[in-house]
């Protein structure tokens, strides 16, 4: 069924009897050509692209819980292509282009809102770094503007310009960045993938991998063994657990990243703002809540929950930047299990086991990558060669030194 205003009107007049499940709930087959482990945004996008672009058949997405229940459903909804390094920016530019056409592609309103992202700077050194980054963005065709203090004040007069500990001196504006309704991304991909014949199997946890002579033969699940010639793993914070079933160690640590939303408010914040002198970024959802986040808690965790000091630290940043938010209230917080890699950039690559592919190490930034991640991972699964825009995302970069360390903090995941 095609979604449209006419369909909504028609169903509204006929008692909504015509709506059908957004995705099918099949029982798992004994064998598939390709299995994607992980029914999050990346896994679903991969399955969709594999079926749509690469003509893949007999594809299953296995999800241990409910699709979209991980990071795609618990993030601050920001999409952007404002990276510095050559290894990253083309990939995120591809992602942004895919976001820009996503609704029409999926026939699902994921509410891609290109409201702009403003990274504030507070020192000359920060300005210089942003200038380098902004110029890189422009050279990559992504667009950028460097604003001075007065231009920022005109755009966001409510920021603390008068008695700030770290005065705002300007900002790097990325107009094409913005937000996307995160849950809708999972549902939209699931719907489109299911329509192309992909089996989305929920409540099916992987418990083991069958590997013979260095080649994947299938996997064990809580719903029985399933054979497959190709298996792709896209499980974010659980990457180490799943890949350990294949005997692999990863350059990844799992951490918790908290995010928060306030009670609903009439529109106050027009775009996405990041504070440069603390750890705080914010946007306002269409429903009215201020959606914000900051640093990861900083210790290895699989608990999907964080602690009070980080909540305080994040809100301190918010109050320092805009003391007008003091009287609104934090409504909800949640913790996401993020796969922090050793250089802060993802890995999309073959593994030493033939037929087993890995997609992970997204740190706290996997959401914005969803469409491109699906795109290039599907390419890898279909062709066994890395997609040109993701060639840098290989395991071997840690050996060769071709690292993609945007923040320049080295092999310490909790600093990325």
């Amino acid at each position, binding site marked *: 069924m095609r*979604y*449209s*205003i006419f*369909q*909504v009107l028609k169903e509204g007049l006929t008692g909504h009897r015509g709506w059908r499940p*957004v995705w099918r*709930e099949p029982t798992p087959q004994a064998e598939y050509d390709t299995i994607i482990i992980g029914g999050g945004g990346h896994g679903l996008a991969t399955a969709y692209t594999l079926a749509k672009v690469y003509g893949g058949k007999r594809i299953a997405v296995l999800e241990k819980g*409910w699709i*979209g229940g991980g990071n795609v459903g618990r993030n601050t909804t920001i999409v952007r292509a404002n990276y510095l390094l*050559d290894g990253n920016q083309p990939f995120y530019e591809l992602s942004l282009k895919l976001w820009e*056409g996503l*609704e*029409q592609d999926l026939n699902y*309103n994921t*509410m*891609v*809102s290109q409201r702009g992202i403003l990274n504030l700077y507070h*020192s000359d050194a920060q*300005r*210089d770094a*942003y*200038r*380098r*980054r902004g*110029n*890189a963005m*422009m*050279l990559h065709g992504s667009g950028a503007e460097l604003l001075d203090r007065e231009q920022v004040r005109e755009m966001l007069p409510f920021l603390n310009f008068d008695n*700030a*500990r*770290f005065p705002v001196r300007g900002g790097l504006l990325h107009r094409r960045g913005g937000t996307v309704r995160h849950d809708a991304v999972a549902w939209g991909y699931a719907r489109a993938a299911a329509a192309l014949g992909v089996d989305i199997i929920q409540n099916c946890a992987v418990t083991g991998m069958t590997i013979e002579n260095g080649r994947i033969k299938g996997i064990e699940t809580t719903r029985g063994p399933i054979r497959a010639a190709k298996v792709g793993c896209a499980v974010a914070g659980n990457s180490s657990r799943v890949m350990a079933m294949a005997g692999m160690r990863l350059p990844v640590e799992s951490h918790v990243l908290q995010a928060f939303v*306030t*009670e*609903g*408010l*009439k*529109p106050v914040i027009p775009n996405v703002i990041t504070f440069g*002198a603390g750890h705080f970024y914010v946007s306002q959802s*269409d429903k*009215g809540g201020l959606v914000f986040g900051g640093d990861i808690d900083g210790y290895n965790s699989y608990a*999907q*929950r964080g*602690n009070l000091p980080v*909540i*305080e630290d994040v809100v*301190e940043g918010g*109050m*320092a930047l805009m003391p*007008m938010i*003091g*009287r*609104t*209230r*934090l*409504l*909800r917080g949640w913790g996401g299990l993020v796969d922090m890699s050793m250089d802060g950039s993802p890995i999309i690559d073959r593994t030493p086991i033939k037929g087993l592919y890995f997609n992970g190490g997204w740190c706290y930034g996997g959401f914005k990558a969803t469409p491109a991640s699906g795109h290039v991972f599907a390419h890898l699964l279909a062709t066994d060669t890395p997609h040109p825009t993701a060639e840098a995302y290989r395991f071997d970069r840690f050996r060769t*030194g071709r690292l993609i360390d945007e923040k*320049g903090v*080295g*092999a310490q995941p909790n600093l990325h």
Partner: protein
Amino acid sequence: MSQINRINSGGGLIDRSKTLSFTFDGRTYQGHPGDTLASALLANGVRLMGRSFKYHRPRGPLSAGSEEPNALVELRAGARREPNTRATTAELFDGLQADSQNRWPSLRFDALAINDRLSNFLTAGFYYKTFMWPRAFWEKVYEPTIRHAAGLGRLSMQDDPDAYDKGFLHCDLLIVGAGPAGLAAALTAGRAGAQVILADEDFRLGGRLNAETFTLDDGPASDWVAATLAELAAMPNLRLMARTTVVGAFDHGVYGAVERVADHLPEPEVDKPRQILWRVYARRALLCAGATERPIAFANNDRPGILQAGALRAYANRWGAAVARRVAVFTNNDDGHRTARDLLTLGLDVAAVIDTRPDAPPGAPQAIGYEVLPGAQVIDTAGRLGLSDVTVRTADGGMRTISCGALGVSGGWNPAVHMTCHQGARPRWEESIAAFVPGADLPPGLSVAGAASGTFSTAGALREGAAGAVAALADLGIDCQPAALPRAEDAPVTITAFWHVNGKGRAWLDQQNDVTVKDVKLAHQEGFRSVEHLKRYTTLGMATDQGKTANMGALAIMAELTGKPIPEVGTTMFRPPYTPVSLGTLAGRSRDEDFRPRRLTPSHRWAEEQGAVFVEVGNWMRAQYFPRPGETHWRQTVDREVRATRSAVGVCDVTTLGKIDVQGTDAATFLNRIYCNAFAKLAVGKVRYGLMLREDGIAKDDGTAARLAEDHFVVTTTTANAVTVFRHMEFCRQCLWPDLDVQLISTTEAWAQYSVAGPRARALLGRIVDPATDLSNEAFPFMACAEVTVCGGLRARLFRISFSGELAYEIAVPTRYGDALMRALMTAGEDFGVTAYGTEALGVLRIEKGHPAGNELNGQTTARMLGMGSMVSAKKDSIGTVLSRREDLDGPEPLRLVGLRPVNAADPLVAGAHLMAQGAPLAAGNSQGWVTSAAFSPHVGSAIALGFLALGDSRKGEIIRAVNPLGGTDVAVEVVSPHFVDPEGEKLRA
């Protein structure tokens, strides 16, 4: 206006002897101390207090507590306006101003109520299916319209004028909730001498006892509560905290609590905070948070006047406020009948008790005072802005319309298990009370008592509270006996689960977000069947009340639809905070200028006297430049400071550089391992530049190490890395080589340090350093160091090192003499034209000399890129050496540090420009590097810059471009040596 619905028979816990005046939507009303805004408005006959989120339906309070979804107002005015404030918990004070929100033009006539007419089309998730065409309309038309219509209250857009504090509390036992269970626990633990905190979100302790007409022993419950509170208040080991909500259970017994210190006042008292965020370290905690009554879903169950049955009687019993004079009750359990009895006793007209149970307790109207309709259901209601009638289908299928202004609804009670789930535990379904109760795996140290554990009788709550305290203290090795408890009602729970009335109309589950039974059915039809999908798709439970009254009903309906038992459908996770917390409270004092501490250098006061302009460098404030009268642009000042330093002598406060004392017989060995260059053989009295790598081979920091004695070094770090370098050195010392004889201490704050640079530096220091020290070039050459005395005996350290490329020294004295030394230097050098220079001039000087700083050492740089590849010793195993050998670290074409000079001397250069070959199109693939630092060089007479350029060391003399598309500039530059000044180093050795 008179309080037409105040029950005049007296009673209640309000002070009728005093009258408070307040306004709602501009109209003035009266209430009494002890009222909430909601109770006072109800007493004044006002039921309509808000509008719902989506359909803009007229709404009144559903509850009398913090679970309230409907009665949200903007409280106070001006900068103190506080949106989305629950009228049901806002304490009344004289002069209170409240305004309704999310309506236009008025609460009674809201234009967006049109949405209610369109509700057939605005069902759950409709927006995912439309608004996609044309593409550009989302940002331009659809989204702005939706955003404008959505949202609830308005922020004032002004800075919050109030202060907030944070505090830390420690206790043996934290008791959350001061109802019967909490009070019994507090008595028990308090009498045992344990350190106890008893916190309750209400401004009046007593919990449900305040709202009921129970007797304890033979007197009113209020007598026992008062006596108990008096005893507790007198205990020095017990802290009573009213108006304090425990909002979260965090790891290892840390609880977050918010105390509303001044929300019941027009504004905080002078020098007092509005709220305090307490971090409570509790060895044990007992959750006595009670239970929340849940509604039943039926058509048009959201009209003002329809409340939880328990809230209806709470308003009457506690606040003497009748929601209406004629009321009815709709229930599936015995507790609903309690409401009818209480209201009847207070003289209200109870039209009927509609009980879904065919076996409802019978009673002839003549005998009990009201009619009971067993097996009956409310199938619809009427009344545009407030309830006027309910339509009832009786057990025999007949229809009756009952006129009433209030309907109390009871679908049973949900234990407040929220905090038991804050660390991932799931609650357990308990069929006997048709509710979830605390499950296994509670947060360590937390136990539950009373209604929160599913024990609903007063006697049961008292018993469990006392027993809970005994058990918690026994855990801590404190023996005690349960407090003697009063006799209390011990009625069993009799309930037959009933969730929703089947029928045609819309029946609300989540009243704030307008989620109806139909929406749940639609979600099921479309495959959103797990609880998480249901919530996200329909927005159920996402409103400011966090689904406290909504989620259970929706879950039950989903269970019906899927044919699964409720516990198999699941529960949603409860996460902190229990109720929403003001952002101001979470930030505390860390805002504005106090966001982070301010570190001042020893010469700060002197610099202020000179009119210096300061700049934030991390947490430090450093003098950026020292403008003099007549200088109209900062560049004039900086150029003067640079020239003066190069031609005479300049002084700069460099105290912010990290300083680490390294002592021990293995100190040299240690430094030899943490620096990539050789240190083992550094002579005493000498300084060496050191480059520190991270273990991954990237440059971590640079600085100097001065050997003051065989077993004593002083290491300096950059300002930015002072803390992390010290941390790293301690890691190496303790974790890698624990048996080396080496000790570290950070002395950054202990020594004030000044750079004295320029041709006259030696002459100037000659007037400061005591004559015992020979400063001649032979006796104290470049890279010498010594412990000396200055100004007639003050111990000091002198290092002949240079960041500027000039003849230069750094001189350090104990910090408390730093101000005096600055003044002494400036006085002594007056006739040399000694000039203080700030960080700007410092930057120019070091760029002219080609020294890397933060912009070059940005965590992505190798020694080779800096031109220091040969420094990395291959003969030893120092941190980072092995992985630094990976040549790809330098980029696909090795980047090297170069100097850059504009071909046209008038052209400016900016850091962040990219370097490209002449004629190359503006594309990322053509970027060959970037400008790291740029400045105007008075020495060169043009802009100069440092940068990293692909194969840069073999391109000297080449003309390339510095392109800055952001600024629209594209400048031809010549690649030169990074050493613009004195490349042979003659000046600094002079």
